[in-house]
């Protein structure tokens, strides 16, 4: 192609481009969230703490850049100074290009939604809620999610789990556990026999072979404490967290179906070992429909039954552990003390805190679609966290989320670390085990 022809093609391309741009519909956001775009003074405090920026030092991934660019996109499409208005033309307001929108979407999804930026932001912008709302607008307009995240979303829609597994495999973990004599009997199906407590297993603990121990240990503990509980078994569906974090509107349908199912069970309490499911059901579901039961993370429930004497921790474990706060349990839900209290109740456990804990805890990088969208960055983030854990001199790294378990294992393997990754339920299970 000659230079002239190339120029002509470029010119045509440029002339065509703005007409292809879809207007972002932002009615799912609130006026306050749109005001928050202006509340960012671009002070850069978020840069210091962002786990993603820590690995990928591009201005584009910073929360301040996301807020500034989204405001720019909105201003070019709406308002008195929009690009196609008289004032917009007078002040030469540029139309946002397709390339800019795609790059913005790619950067917006390069985030683990850990909420660290909210906790250090002087303007206290509710960043994660904002990103999730913007992601929804991008999905509606066809700019999100990322290609590599689509299979995860499609899997939730098709199989009710993000791991591409058939629905019929959801209870395989309990069957296997019974076969291997890890549990005496499979947990009761709560839809057949009513119970006070529903144990919501969650997709990761149900399907991931490496993390199934979380579900098995929880069952062992509940059985030992003679808790009147049941599980949904094959009727359990994904909580929809994946869709919510990535901006897919079908989250509402899934949430509504789940809420209806849960509310009809007549339970008093729902417990879950997954911080992501916990945050979604406890914090996000009530925005759609009221729940007629209490939602607790397993650690909170275990403290209750230990304190009431229902569960006795008899074995001394003699372990030096360090605790990793899952973002969705800590920063998103404010549960910092319960897991630490539970660890102190286990005989022989010595907790050594990492430099960054509680609201300053460093994310493992697995959440918000980052692990599926940017696995290399997640790997790096996880390695950084593992190094912090190693620096404490602890032998075990404990957390309270199967997703963090997965995410941190990536770092342990990459570093060939000697740290042993454990879910908190594993330690409790070891403490109650009948050695005879």
């Amino acid at each position: 192609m000659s230079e002239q022809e190339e120029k002509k093609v470029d010119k045509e391309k440029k002339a065509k481009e703005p007409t292809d741009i879809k207007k972002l519909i932002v009615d799912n956001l609130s006026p306050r969230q749109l005001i928050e775009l202006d509340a960012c003074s671009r002070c850069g405090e978020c840069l210091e703490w962002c786990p993603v920026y820590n690995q990928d030092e591009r201005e584009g991934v910073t929360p301040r850049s996301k807020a500034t660019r989204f405001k720019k996109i909105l201003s070019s499409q709406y308002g008195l100074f929009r690009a196609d208005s008289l004032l917009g033309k007078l002040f030469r307001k540029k139309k946002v290009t397709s390339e800019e929108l795609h790059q913005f979407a790619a950067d917006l999804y390069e985030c683990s939604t850990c909420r660290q930026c909210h906790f250090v932001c002087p303007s206290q912008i509710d960043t994660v809620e904002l990103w999730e709302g913007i992601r929804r607008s991008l999905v509606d307009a066809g700019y999100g999610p990322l290609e590599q995240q689509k299979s995860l979303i499609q899997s939730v829609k098709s199989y009710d789990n993000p791991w591409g597994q058939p629905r019929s495999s959801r209870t395989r973990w309990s069957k296997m556990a019974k076969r291997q004599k890890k549990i005496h009997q499979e947990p009761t199906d709560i839809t057949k026999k009513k119970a006070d407590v529903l144990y919501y297993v969650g997709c990761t603990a149900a399907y991931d072979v490496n993390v199934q121990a979380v579900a098995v240990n929880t069952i062992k503990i509940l059985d030992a404490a003679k808790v009147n509980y049941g599980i949904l078994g094959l009727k359990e569906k994904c909580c929809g967290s994946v869709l919510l974090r990535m901006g897919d509107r079908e989250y509402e349908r899934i949430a509504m179906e789940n809420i209806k199912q849960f509310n009809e069970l007549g339970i008093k309490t729902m417990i879950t070992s997954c911080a992501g499911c916990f945050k979604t059901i406890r914090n996000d579901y009530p925005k759609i429909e009221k729940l007629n039961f209490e939602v607790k993370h397993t650690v909170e429930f275990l403290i209750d039954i230990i304190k009431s004497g229902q569960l006795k921790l008899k074995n001394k474990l003699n372990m030096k552990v360090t605790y990793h706060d899952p973002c969705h349990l800590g920063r998103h839900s404010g549960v910092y003390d319960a897991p630490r209290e539970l660890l102190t109740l286990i005989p022989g456990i010595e907790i050594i805190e990492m430099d960054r804990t509680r609201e300053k805890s460093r994310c493992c990088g697995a959440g918000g679609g980052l692990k599926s969208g940017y696995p290399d960055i997640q790997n790096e983030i996880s390695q950084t966290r593992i190094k912090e854990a190693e620096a404490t001199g602890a032998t075990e790294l404990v957390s309270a989320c199967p997703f963090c378990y997965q995410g941190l294992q990536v770092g342990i393997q990459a570093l060939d670390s000697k740290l042993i990754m454990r879910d908190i339920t594993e330690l409790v299970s070891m403490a109650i085990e009948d050695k005879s």
Partner: protein
Amino acid sequence: MKLTGKIILFVLGILFLFNLSASAREDYGAITEQDCEVCHLDSYYPGGDFFEAEDNYKWKIFWAMTALAAVIFLVGMTNNFMLWRLGKSSSLRGKLRWGPVLKSIITEVILEKRILKTSFIRWSVFFGISMGFIFLFIVFLAFISLKLSTGLDFIEPSSLHLTLDLLLDLFGALIMIGIFLAIIRRYVLKSAQMENLTQDTVALIFIFLIILSGFLLEGFRCATLPPSTALKFSFMGCIIGSWLKPFELPWTVYHYYLWIIHGFISLAFIAYIPFGKIRHFIACPISITATASDEANVNQE
């Protein structure tokens, strides 16, 4: 002591020393109305007369500029409101909780505790500029509403005028300290987390010029008037006035023109608010207080 603390002490010390030296040179006297008239009879004003220049030029220019600034400001804010109103979902989780909101106004909006925890120099920048501006604005509103409602005059020499002088200089100095530290942090120390966009520099230049021209106005006045206790209330102007006094120049005429320039910059700044970084002066308190209310509601749930 940390570097930031030393810088602040140094700046305050310099101000104090200048003020001492300025007041030590001449004996105090009282400002009389005659002092004002003598200066204002200069013939360099437009129309050759101060009072004609005041009535026929200065205020007309001022009100025209004010009207233009108000229109630009309103257009900008209308545009912002149009964008903000695109959001249709609920802004608050539950009802507005006044207790936590008021607490957050004191601890986070005014005292900016969160910034203080992370960096003292950053806190000084934020506190100096934002609080300086908020207090200046409050003082201005208070005096204007007093004038309109009770007819009290704060321009003619009086205790009210002295109070105004003191407060304007005090909060102006607070802003200047904030700007000084912001410039050091942004352009000298070049903090790694800073990103300098045009709007950042524009905002700083605007604020710097407003305060500088304000202090120069005071300085021109102090350079002309005989030293008096009253002048000490304009402590920043007194320092500048002591530097200018040896030069026998028509300061009152300069004062006339600089006043118009000061007014122009201030009004341009107001017109610029909806379009640049300064928007966060309005948006930040909304975000902070809404978060406080939400957190209180979540904790109660």
